[in-house]
């Protein structure tokens, strides 16, 4: 177990800076600013992250390490003990931009290795103790449940399996955003700020 202040990586994904999710991102950062946590922050759209896995990357995907263009992303991932992903849920999962960050950065030698002859990845992100999602859904909780909550399970099962056995996930989600009241939106933003702050203390 690491001691000292939390090391928090915040990954934000929304194309529009005036969106509700962007506001939730600002509130998450504001919450973190009230703690002594060290924070690294990534805005995938603002930096022009390329989400498509390239042919060259695929040819070498079993070899450890990533290309220079995403080396800082890989470093952030191995540095943090708390990971906060802020994104809108589209088609029951992370937007393509964020899925591309997962496809490319959660690479061999960073998030996992594959021993010879094995067909299951061996986890490497032992320092990550908590995965937090801050997300919005256009449709209701019922519809999302029927569709299987794919985005939630991607984090709580697939990604968490690359971390420590003790890693926990925290799901901070606003459902039915297309039809919900302003009061519920405000309440959600307050919840984001206070919950993220308490997780980072």
């Amino acid at each position, binding site marked *: 177990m690491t001691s000292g202040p939390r090391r928090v990586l915040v990954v934000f994904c*929304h*194309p*529009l800076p005036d*969106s509700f999710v962007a506001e939730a991102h600002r509130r998450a950062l504001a919450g973190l600013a009230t703690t002594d946590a060290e924070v690294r922050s990534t805005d995938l*759209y603002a930096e022009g992250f390329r*989400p*498509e*896995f*390239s*042919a060259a*990357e*695929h*040819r070498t995907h079993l070899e450890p390490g990533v290309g220079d263009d995403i080396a800082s992303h890989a470093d952030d991932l191995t540095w943090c003990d708390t990971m906060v992903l802020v994104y809108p849920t*589209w*088609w*029951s*999962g*992370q*937007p*393509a*931009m964020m*899925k*591309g960050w*997962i*496809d490319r950065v*959660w690479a061999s030698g960073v998030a996992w290795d*594959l021993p010879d*002859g*094995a*067909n*299951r*990845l061996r986890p490497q992100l032992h320092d990550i103790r908590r995965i937090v999602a801050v997300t919005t859904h256009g*449709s209701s909780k019922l519809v999302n449940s*029927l*569709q*299987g909550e*794919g*985005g939630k*399970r*991607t984090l709580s*099962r*697939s*990604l968490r*399996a690359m971390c420590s056995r003790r890693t926990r996930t925290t799901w901070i989600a606003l459902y039915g955003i*297309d*039809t919900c009241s302003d009061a519920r939106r405000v309440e959600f933003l307050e919840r984001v700020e206070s919950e993220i702050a308490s997780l980072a203390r």
Partner: protein
Amino acid sequence: MKAAVVLAHPNSDSFAHELARRAHAGLLAAGHEAELVDLHAIGFRAAMSPEERAAYHGASPVLDPIVDGQIDLVTSVDTIVFVYPTWWSGLPAILKGWLERVMVPGVGFRFDEKSGKVRPGLTNVRRIVGISTYGSPRWYVRLVNDNGRRTLMRALRLSCGLRASRRWIAMYALDTTSRNQRQEFAAHVERSMSELR
């Protein structure tokens, strides 16, 4: 029958490419019309742009001629066949982006004027086929949740209406299969597609 085969893999010498070619050949051999779309080869962009997001709920949400071409295709077929590797239990980013950018309001779905609820938009499609490879064994895929399959077979199917049929053809634990097993699977894919009616 008219089919679109949508392929999402960056490497032209990949197994996914072979599966897509075999699926396409099977459809043609059965006398169907079929178009193979290699998303990487046509330069499809995965991420929805800020301009596209801003236009999403407006009258003209499509701003990219490549997306326009995909919309012309999916609105003219009765079968869509997806061929892709499952990564992190889901669709590769480029295929996830295809859903986000092609299945826009007015194409994949429409909002009912009275209730504001989502209604199917792609009612010309009566069959969705998924052909996917997994690095993990089947039991592990079930344990962590087969998210890509659910996205296509549940969320996308709602765009086509509940009368649309579904077919899933998968190969698990790909990295530990033999060459023979892969060849058998590719033949199975071609045969299955040639038997579609």
